[in-house]
């Protein structure tokens, strides 16, 4: 492969699409990890302070993990 051909590969729309996809997948994975850590930490907080809103907080944390999973699926299949 010549050098000009190599650079043409990066200029193409396909290369941009792949870059976008890889960044999106990495961000989704990091966000998923963050969501899981927050949920685990909320479980510890719940032990430290039990209030009537704690169930709602758990629900929102679960929704956050679901959103992270949906983002990951979108990143893999949509783009």
């Amino acid at each position, binding site marked *: 492969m010549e050098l000009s051909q190599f650079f043409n590969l990066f200029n193409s729309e396909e290369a941009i*699409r792949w870059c976008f996809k890889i960044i*999106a997948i990495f961000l989704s994975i990091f966000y998923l990890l963050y*969501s899981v850590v927050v949920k685990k930490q909320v479980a510890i*907080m719940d032990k*430290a302070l*039990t209030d009537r809103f704690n169930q709602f907080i758990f629900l929102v944390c679960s929704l956050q993990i679901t959103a992270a999973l949906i*983002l990951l699926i979108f990143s893999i299949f949509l783009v």
Partner: protein
Amino acid sequence: MENKVFFSYCLYPEIKFETYEPGEKIILLLRAHPFTQLSWILYSVFSLILIFVVNIIISSFFAISQLFLLNCFMAVFLLSFIWFNLLNWYFNVGIVTNRRVIDIDFYAVLYREITVARLDKIQDITVKSGGYFEAFFNYGTIFIQTAGTEANIEFADIPRPAEVVQMIEKLLTKRHGT
């Protein structure tokens, strides 16, 4: 149970905490005054406006599917930022019971610190409330000094600090009988 100032000043709250002792009566639950949370609320509103502006600028550079995913990311990150700050506010509490004063702090959601001081160990209570907003919204910081090896306690930016001090002093008088 009585809630005042958006759940930042709760009288006789129905809560349980980690170091709860049987027979202990929880009198007061304190959180930072909602006004002190205004900075991150404003950041969130500003970020929301920024998302709309960015959308107008970048809409011609990306395909529809890419633009959709980009918007999903921005929305999720903004909501996470709001949620993170809300959790920080909600779980950073001060508790006054008929036996002890407890300060539960979560730094950046990840680090936990629980400071407990028994009422009979309290030596001095100081209120610090200065500035235009503190005076207008009636909030301030309380420092509780304890004797011996027990750690000092700080309730930062709580509403009605004078009332809280009065309440603790009443409890101290009851306890010491003077």
